[in-house]
């Protein structure tokens, strides 16, 4: 259950709109279905009253939207940021992607977000979902109400949340949390422990489902190039679904490589993938390697930190030893 209510966020946003601190609000609104929540820009308190939502399906991270939004007006825009979103916020500031002065950031606590795909495995014809303490009441079209444990329906990224603490905000609503010890590398270690043949088969099974919709790239707060390599008409892989295992792997290796050292592990890529490809397992491999080769590094923990890719020491690990490191960890 989220600590803050929709009314609490609405009230604060209305005040800030009223006193002129901001003239727009980045928030969530209902999509096709109640659990199908989508980001939106609200221009008035009335608009917000009508369609603003806050709850267990508000996973969307607004940091990347700030790049376009801060260019649209001289006034500030209000953004509600969950703890993990604030890491992306800092990372974008590190890369000078938007003007900090044009944002009024409100940190809000997060009790984890629910993954509708997990609910779909348990219930058919979902009409809406209500949260009641640690239970979810799923209203279905055919089978009446189904009650589920909320903890079991949490998005993967929330089950291994790395931080309940906000690293950036102008104002904080609710209680501040802490950086937490998370088991987010366990799955990576399991894959490392497989034989090369098993690993290849595992990844082929996952990556061959990719339809190259590019949603993972488009949503990623680290992927903010105006021209992406995958839009290069000479690349042979522009806007097309992969034709063979090479293209599948190339897209995923290069996508993950380009965000390595800048990926905050916000989990947006895996959230939006319509094919449920575990992209976080690629990103986290890089994060795990970076931590083990060059010392622990959390992208976005602070503004202005030097990413591992644009840094070095004379005694860095040799690539041949690097690949062996996985064996020891396994």
């Amino acid at each position, binding site marked *: 259950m989220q600590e803050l209510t929709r009314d609490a966020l609405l009230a604060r946003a209305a005040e800030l709109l009223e006193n002129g601190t901001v003239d727009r609000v980045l928030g969530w609104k209902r999509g096709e279905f109640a659990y199908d929540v989508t980001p939106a820009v609200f221009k008035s308190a009335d608009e917000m009253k009508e369609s603003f939502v806050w709850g267990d399906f508000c996973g969307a991270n607004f940091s990347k939207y700030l790049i376009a939004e801060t260019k649209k007006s001289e006034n500030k825009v209000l953004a509600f940021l969950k703890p993990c979103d604030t890491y992306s916020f800092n990372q974008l500031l590190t890369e000078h992607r938007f003007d900090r002065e044009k944002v009024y950031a409100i940190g809000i606590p997060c009790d984890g977000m629910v993954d509708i795909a997990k609910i779909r495995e348990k219930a058919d014809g979902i009409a809406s979902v209500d949260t009641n303490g640690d239970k979810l009441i799923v209203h279905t079209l055919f089978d009446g109400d189904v009650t589920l444990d909320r903890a079991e329906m949490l998005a993967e990224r929330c089950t291994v949340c790395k931080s309940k603490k906000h690293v950036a905000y102008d104002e904080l609503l609710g209680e501040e949390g802490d950086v937490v010890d998370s088991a987010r590398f366990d799955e990576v270690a399991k*894959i*490392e422990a497989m034989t*090369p*043949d*098993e*690993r*290849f*088969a*595992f*990844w082929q099974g996952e990556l061959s489902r990719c339809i190259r919709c590019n949603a993972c790239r488009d949503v990623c707060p680290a992927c903010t190039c105006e021209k992406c*390599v995958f839009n290069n008409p*000479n*690349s*042979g892989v522009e806007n097309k679904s992969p*034709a*063979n*295992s*090479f*293209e599948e*792997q*190339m897209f995923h*290796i*290069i996508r*993950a*490589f380009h965000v*390595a050292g800048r990926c905050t592990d916000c989990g947006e890529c895996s959230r939006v993938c319509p094919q449920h490809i575990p992209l976080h397992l*690629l990103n986290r*491999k*890089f994060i795990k*390697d*970076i931590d083990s*080769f*060059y010392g622990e590094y959390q992208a976005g923990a602070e503004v202005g930190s030097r990413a*591992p*890719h*644009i*840094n*070095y*020491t*004379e005694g*860095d*690990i*040799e*690539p*041949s030893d*690097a*690949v062996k*490191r*996985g064996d020891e960890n396994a």
Partner: protein
Amino acid sequence: MHEINSNEFISKEKVSTETFSAEINSENKPYKPLIVAFCCNWCSYAGADLAGNNRLSYPADVKIIRVPCSCRVNPMFILRAFQRGADGVILCGCHPGDCHYTSGNYYTRRRMALLFSMLDYLGIERERTRVEWVSAAEGAKFAATMNDFAEKVAALGENKRLEDLRCKN
């Protein structure tokens, strides 16, 4: 020594089949792996020259691509080499500390450590990729490195996991 300009290499046009030898799969010859070696102009490329001048032998199927510095090598080049039929890709640069652009090879080292570890994680045989530091004076090391690398790659056989059949003839 066969040289391919790196820009031509990543362009859409197919690299001529002669470049990527037709020996693969030919029936009457033993299998020889096709190796792409990215060599830094200032050291390893000169090292290769020295190996040639000293008549040290290394496999003819090592195709050298000269780059201005090891850090010129974009991860995409490596994947493209595999796509177009390479069985192994090796990257040679100046010894750490000796890069002619001061720090290029330090960045190369970080990038390739991460990239190769990722390839390994995806199940692509780790013996197919290598980084080696070879100076202009190390002709013997160049030849020995290539012989050893070609042998390891030959033991693995053809690259099947990162190939693109459409790019092979």
